[in-house]
């Protein structure tokens, strides 16, 4: 056990850091507001294109798909630096982290050729059609139907709280092909397909983030199905394992905390009670960081990651909350728009315990798998 970065990792971090510094525009702080605004999405395409050219978009992907077979540490260092800067990749981080790798594992050759190269070039945005009005944490209860008609499927139903749907090119969509948990299939659906209607839902997260997506007699070819019928649960399980540690929210939380403290110091407002809150938040950020690193270390060593991933995610939720509350209490002007980066963190932080599965689901997993408490009766 040791906590040193090696020279190669330090050099890689410096490369990413310098790339970001050189490629963010002067008005970046104003673009970075809200994670999915039109402005940010447009900028992300330009930025991700440049990242791809520099070999920094998908370094952890296999060489045959435009990557460099870099280990998970590099992918995580990259993600940390991106989040610290306010995530200039916008919604494309999903392509890089799990959509691309999932297609590499389960996609047909035609699907791989169609979708992976544009991701590797930073040209495309996806959305994730999981949640429905009646199916959030209980995802297996989803109702969107895909009825087979010859060599096509007709999809009807509704998705909701879908991030990036307004500007996405393609939807990674879950739909029911038969009853029960084993009756869910995945479809890769171009968002321009007739019958798809997207409606933005105004939200506290910011402009352009969450949407309703309606599917009315949307006709897709059989070849749009990812994997076999009923394989969604296996594929999603694998996809989530690629994303186990989640996004390094602690990195942006730490940067935000230091920004807030710096403002308070300038105003001589970093005093005893305030210091205590800041220090507690900083300690929580460092705990989340170490938990996350432990999981990356397991991935590098091919050690199966169990409930530690849920422990790490919950630690991240705790630190996000402490930092967010610190800003609200001590730099409230940020929430009124006077500091775009602090506001951007606040808006991203709101979803920390909700996006990619509610934090309470993580607590259930920790109780059962990590503490080995008896299960709740069903």
């Amino acid at each position: 056990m040791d906590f040193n970065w090696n020279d190669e990792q330090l050099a890689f971090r410096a490369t990413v850091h310098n790339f970001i510094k050189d490629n963010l525009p002067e008005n970046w702080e104003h673009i970075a507001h809200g994670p999915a605004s039109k402005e940010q999405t447009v900028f992300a395409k330009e930025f991700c294109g440049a990242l791809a050219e520099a070999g920094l978009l998908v370094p952890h992907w296999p060489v045959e798909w435009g990557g460099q077979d870099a280990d998970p540490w590099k992918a995580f260092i990259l993600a940390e630096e991106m989040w610290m800067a306010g995530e200039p990749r916008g919604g494309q981080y999903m392509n890089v982290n799990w959509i691309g790798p999932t297609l590499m594992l389960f996609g047909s050759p035609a699907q791989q050729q169609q979708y992976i190269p544009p991701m590797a070039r930073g040209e495309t945005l996806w959305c994730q059609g999981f949640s429905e009005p009646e199916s959030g944490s209980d995802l297996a209860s989803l109702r969107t139907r895909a009825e087979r008609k010859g060599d096509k499927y007709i999809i009807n139903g509704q998705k909701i709280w879908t991030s990036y749907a307004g500007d996405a090119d393609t939807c990674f969509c879950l739909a029911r092909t038969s009853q029960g948990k084993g009756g869910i299939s995945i479809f890769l659906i171009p968002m321009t397909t007739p019958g798809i209607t997207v409606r933005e839902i105004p939200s506290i997260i910011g402009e352009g983030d969450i949407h309703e997506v309606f599917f009315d007699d949307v006709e897709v070819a059989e070849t749009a199905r990812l994997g076999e019928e009923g394989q969604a649960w296996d594929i999603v399980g694998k996809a989530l394992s690629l994303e186990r540690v989640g996004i390094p929210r602690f990195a942006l939380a730490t940067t935000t905390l230091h920004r807030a403290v710096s403002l308070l110091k300038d105003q001589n407002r970093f005093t005893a009670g305030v210091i205590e809150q800041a220090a507690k938040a900083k300690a929580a950020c460092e705990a989340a960081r170490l938990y996350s690193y432990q999981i990356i270390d397991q991935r590098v060593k091919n050690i199966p990651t169990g409930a530690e991933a849920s422990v790490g995610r919950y630690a991240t939720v705790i630190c996000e909350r402490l930092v967010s509350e610190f800003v609200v209490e001590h730099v409230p002007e940020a929430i009124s728009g006077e500091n775009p980066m602090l506001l951007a963190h606040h808006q991203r932080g709101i979803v920390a315990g909700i996006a990619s599965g509610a934090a309470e689901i993580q607590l259930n997993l920790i109780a059962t798998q990590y503490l080995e408490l008896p299960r709740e009766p069903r």
Partner: protein
Amino acid sequence: MDFTLNEDQLAVAGEIDKLAAQFKSSPVDFHGFALYSAELDKQLEDNQFFDIAAMPEMGPLAAALAVERLAQLPYTAEVALSMLLRPALNIELPRPIAVIENGRPGRFVGVAKTLIIIDGDSVGIAHPQAGDTQAIPESLFAYPMAKLVGKLDVQLLSESEADIVRTWLRVACAAEMAGLLKAAIDATVEHISVRKQFGRPLGTLQALRHRMAECAVLAGGVRWLALKAAWSADAGDAALAALHAQESASRVIYDVHQMSGAMGMTLEMDLHLWTYRMKALMSELGGRSGQAEAAGKYCF
């Protein structure tokens, strides 16, 4: 970055676990607070475990791992300061070592051969003689507690030495707290897994499951911060580790007692051995506000 134990660290952990196995159960007729074991102390001394931080292939990280493991025992001995603080100072410190902070009673003060005397910002060292200390057997803290009654000749440390002392006291506090937190959580998990109410184990109730899960997240975080601080010897890391330890303890102590109900109030469950050690550690170096002040100085 490497989060698994290397061969040397595994060997230390294995040897510590082997030694600790003899001290895993409290005596059935013990219904007190300070379950001190001179035999545990002797065996650690005889096997040179107090020197592992100074061994080049081991270092303070291995020592912190040992402290964390030994803190999970129902028996206690002066381990943390001997293993972590003593090797950090270039001064000969006969062990056991104890701390007198602002004149208050301290743990292991009655058996200590070296006392760290903290008075406000000044830190000194003294070596008590027989009659200089007085045991406080009625203390609820589950350590042998004693206070200073004699007048000691105190050798004041330089500012830089005092900083080193405070840093390693914080690392020691966090490493010991990590083990105590784990032991208290394990005991409570065992209790709510078997204790049935309303026809089912308490541990099936989501209201309790979630709280225990949150406690586990905090406890694991304390362990990582303590190990990182032992590895880096950084004053900021040490302050964060001790702060997170004391902050987490305040939450976990309440929750484990609440979930253990009246059983946890009895002296037969052993829960108090860990929770009342945690309570003793919570006040060290000014408690949370003291650690936060240090974190404010070193981390921001």
